[in-house]
């Protein structure tokens, strides 16, 4: 289960970001932002190594990660992108996407 899920645009601004506890929100935002460096590093290394292989999953940033979680999230994200009324680059406000994310979040309370 996740505590914070974020979708980041390729210009590195958040399309969607949500975390469980509100009191730690700032911390999570900082963490997500900082981890973008790692993601960038991975992207550059993958780009060199695998060429045009369409593997979207970059691997683990931290040793706890669920592969299924990514696929689920990515499918939902694809749905959002397929929405003709969604303007690419806008923050995601889809209810369905929100629901999927909620399902993956740690249930609190």
């Amino acid at each position, binding site marked *: 289960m996740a505590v914070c899920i974020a979708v980041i645009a390729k210009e590195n601004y958040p399309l969607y970001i949500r975390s469980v506890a509100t009191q730690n929100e700032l911390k999570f935002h900082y963490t997500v932002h900082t981890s973008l*460096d790692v993601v960038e590093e991975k992207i550059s290394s993958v780009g060199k190594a695998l060429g045009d292989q369409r593997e979207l999953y970059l691997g683990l940033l931290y040793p706890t990660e669920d592969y299924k979680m990514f696929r689920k999230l990515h499918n939902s994200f694809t749905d959002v992108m397929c929405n003709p009324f969604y303007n690419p680059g806008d923050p995601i406000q889809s209810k369905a996407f929100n629901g999927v994310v909620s399902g993956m979040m740690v249930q609190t309370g």
Partner: protein
Amino acid sequence: MAQCVQSVQEFLQDSFVPMVAVLCSKEADRVSRKNKLSFPELLRPFCRLLSEGHIRDPNNQLQTVKNLRICVNAVTTNPVSSPAVLSPAQYRQLGEVVSSCQPLEGAAATSFKTGDYNLNLSVTTPWFEAYRENFLQSMPASEHEFLNHYLACLLVVSSTEAVPVEQFLKLSQEQHRIQHSGEYTHPRWFIPNTLKYYVLLHDLSEGDEQRAETVYEDMKQRYGSQGCYLLKINSRAVSAEEDEQIPDPWSQYLHKNNLRYQVSLVIGSLSLRPPAGISIQSLFWFLNDACSPTSRTDTEGVAPVAVGRGSCLTLNDHDRIRQFVQEFTFRGLLPHIEKNIRQLNDQLVSRKGLSRSLFTATKKWFGGGKAPEKGMSEPKSACGLLYPPEAPELQIRKMADLCFLVQHYELAYSCYHTAKKDFLSDQALLYAAGALEMAAVSAFLQGGGARPYPAHYMDTAIQKYRDDCRNMVLAERCALLSAEILKNQGKYSEAATLLIKMTSEDSDLRSALLLEQAAHCFINMRSPMVRKFAFHMILAGHRFSKAGQRKHALRCYSQAMQVYKDRGWSLAEDHINFTIGRQSFTLGQPESAVTAFRQILNDDSKQTATQQAAFLREYLYVHKLAQCLMPRGLPQLPLPCILSAATRVYFGHEPRLAQGEKQAATHVSLDQEYDPELSAMWSRLEEQLVAAANRGIVPVGFQPTQCCLNSQTDNLRQPLAVLNEPIIVEVTFRNPLKVSLALSELSLLWRFSPHVSSLSIREPVSEQLTGEVIGNEETLTTPARLKLLPHRTGQLSIVGVTYNLSSSSSETTEGTFKHYSMELVVRGRQDLNIQGPRLNQTKEEKMSVRHGTDRRLDAIITPPMPLMEVFFLHFPSALLCGEIRKAYVEFCNVGAVALCGLRVASTHPEFFTFGCNNPTPSSPASAEHGSAYKTFAATVQPGSVVSEVEVCAQDFSQLSGVLEIPIDGGTLHPGQSIQLPLWLRGPDQEGVHEINFLFYYESTEKGLKVSHRVLRHTVFICASRSLSVQASACRSTAPPQRSADSIGCDGTLVFVDVENVNTSEGGMREFHIVQVSSSSQRWRLHKYINPDKDNDCKLSSREKAKLCFRATPCVPLPGRYCSLSGCAPIISSSTPCRDFFFRCCRGLELQQEDKTSRTGSKNKTVSTPDNCTSDPAAIAKKCNELDLTIIVIWKAFVVEDSKQLILEGQLHVALQTIGKEATSLMPKEEAQEMVLLKFKSDLPPPVALPSPEMSQLIKTNLHYPETFSHGFLQDSLCMVPVTLTLSNCCSAPIEVLIDLRHRSTSAESLEFHSLFSWVGQSQYKLLLRPHEVLSLALRACFFRAGVYNLNTARVFAKPAQQSSMSESNQQAASPALIIINST
């Protein structure tokens, strides 16, 4: 890690330098104190050797010593606390060093670009270097290493001493005592027999040089020429004026140490001053400047300290000191070190074989025996076992250190390496860590690729220092060295990890500095990690602020901000901004604090309400203080948002709604929504009015008056405002936050420039415009209305609004709120920048985003104009259809100028009238009844016909919906008011009607900017059904009267059906038909033919009555009236009745015209009489044309509030043609709309005219005796003479064909016709002149008695000269029966 001024090699070399102790005699100290410097301080700037030295290693190889520095310190025997931690004083000093070292203003900030990030960074971090230098210098000497143990001791004695040699002896003894007595632990000594160097200090200004020379000679004898020196200083007297400026080499070495003292001094003197906005931080800056002697010396308290340092020294003296240090190092120190290395080497070599085995053997034997020393009981033993000072392992280490100090890194490395192995095998962790550290450093310094740099040595060393020995100071030193080396090798990632690992809770300053360096490492990587940089900068900033280093904290946050800014990371951004704001505020930079806080309170803040409230409070607080500190105008406030486009401007007074029973004109108000259709309607009305005022021509530059400007109106021109009339600006505020804001004391900001060309004398403009408070609390979107009253002509532009902003919390009560808001109220302004509509005309405009101009806030104030107010009295809101009601209207000029040209236009001109210009005096009867109608004074016999002729017309021909209002003299002077009667007539159609009036007036002065003014009024009238009048006319079949007034054949019967269609249950009692009038140019109602002579025609609900009249043609005259009955006949030709009649007709015509113009292709039905002859259709039409309008005047008895009321009204029915029915209720217009949907082309007009029109060209009458007796027995044939009268109804000659023959085919006629026949000429062809009556004598022949229909003759007619047309059958009259009796 940031770039450093020193290279790595320099840094490492300078970190470990030979230490030299100094012992001074009192006298020598006094001599050097003349320069306000102690002896070690005196030497310090000259401790770096500029020339190369040489040394021979144990293998007799010559080794060069380059760029060597020595460190000279006075011997202090103060016990030092545990070497594992720094003392609080040391920490304080480090903190001061860091805070005193700030980036310079405008220091070279390199712009750094990576990806889409553009950062401005300071590449160097001098505060870190200062910290590092200070930290390394303040390292306490430890027993596991010898690098910072004293190698030599300078014994300094002044030449002024009585017996200098004795003093030398004393000092020497003291040195010996310190080193060997065991009383003191602190100054640690490298080697037991420390090098003693004897220095005779000679003061040139006071001492006897000769004597000094002799003493020196003596010393040379005693200590050898290599072990002593004569140093001559102070060539200048103290009193000597400073006429030459000597560079001050001490400044960069000494001020840091003096700083603390100086600061306290300055603070002491400063506390007397009023607490100005100067912070302590800026004082440091101030001090740094002051400390250099070249700077101003007038600063109190600081000057005496700074001035006079080295004042007794000339440049020659500097050279002498430098020479002395060089001499000491090369002749004394280096040979001493060389000797010791050699000695140690020999020792080690000789012991090698034996000692190694011996020691390992003893270790095996006493393996358990050493265990207690490792125990945790003693703090020092925590790091492993302790060696006695003479232990061979330590000898190796000592030799390694010596080699290191003289830059023989190769030998040093091998020694360290060996030592390391020994220490590790002995589990002497502290020693091992030290050896590892130095091994790594010397391996690195060896350079040249001889040996790969053992990075793991460093890691192990740090880990051992930190974890095993708990010695953070050493661990930190090791980390600093290691990080610097890693940085040099480009291993930024490792360096960052190392630095981050070193951060801990115990020292915020250290953590902050290390985190900052780590951040710099991230940004310096080959693929820069910008975000990690930013994050660690934030962490560093946090630690800095915890350590009290506010400036550094602020700098860190600001740098991190560059990464987070405007990238959607709003939470992080807000956090940083908030911190920046706080730090800036505490640093006395309220302006930047305000800027930072402003950015938090932006539009789409994702913070929670409580957080926002906190931000807001902080912002207001900071803002208020900032304003107090440096008031400079009104600040721009970020909150609340102003929806500029929604700004509305209203010119004029706010309309009053009612004044007692007077009802004011609605005009325009800000409360109304803008409706483009409505405004188009108003502008159409205004155009009509303007056209009427300018003799039918609309001026070229006509612009409809706009009282209320908003985003949809045309704002391209500057609006015109009138002097002394308010301008109301409605500003719409939106609160983007989740907490409520309180605004108070809103007022407008404006700019005014008087016209140069205007007539008014130019005076300085004082505060003539006043703002007014309207709104004070906002939650979401609230408009606030602000009023501005111009007192002078000129150009006024409204710039913005100013207001007091405070946060309002809902839970506070009224009283506390007041108090609260007193504290946190900020006055500020916001500008109104209104963008015009987006342009979308040209391609360029479509491609880019361009906006038009919007000048609704730039008003021109014009000289005074008249201002009219209109009030209505007794104005009804509900009327019956056709009801006439009298109301009063009052015009009042409240302006300062007389008005004239009063006109009104309306969408429903038939609704009202002001009456005629010369009102006839009303009869007393009507006055009694309160009737709107005038009656004849004399009662007329009921049922009689009153006929009168009215010359009307010209008054009404000009009608175009515009009505001039008849006021006396045509002008209304200021303050004057006039009341006029106003008749209203209920609309003919039931329902709610919106009726718009537009009053127009001008100033009596001409040539003004504002040519006219208008006033709007809208009323809603609810019309309910009253009577339905249907009328039809038919030609009377009776033969034309031979009376005098009959000209032609005609006589028309008019039937009027009146039905009470009122549906309201209560109140309405009954309707009385009071009078029926007619209006026509050619006809008049002649006779009332009511069947039962019942003149009182009353109709209750749903009742119907039929009235029958005969109309006779008359001389064409504009109007004739026929009254029906009533107590007193109403003069239907007088004001209300006549006016409404003509207005209605006009309205109908307008509608008709409107229709034709709308359908466009419709045939022109109106044609001149000349054409009539040629156009058969027209002839036929003309023939049937009636053009008679019936006016039914009624009274209704209504009970309302148990009071009987009499309502009066009139209905009009226009009879156009004979045979067609007309009704008072307007037919619904539907057909017009359908045309648009028709795609078929219109059918071509039929060639053969339809019979109904053409069949009435000729009227036929048969004259015959009704009964005829004939003796059939006598004569079988009965001949009866019959006269056929043909009368031409048309005004054109008609060809008539009469066929008397039977139509055998007709079945019904068989009955009669077969039994009689016409005799004589059976077919006639005649030509009838217009309106000619012609009689034909015919004879009918009957064969037997019976009843016969004589009307068998067929009459065909066609207009003459229309050869192409066939004759059409004329309408057969009703059967003409004849009774033939047989006798």
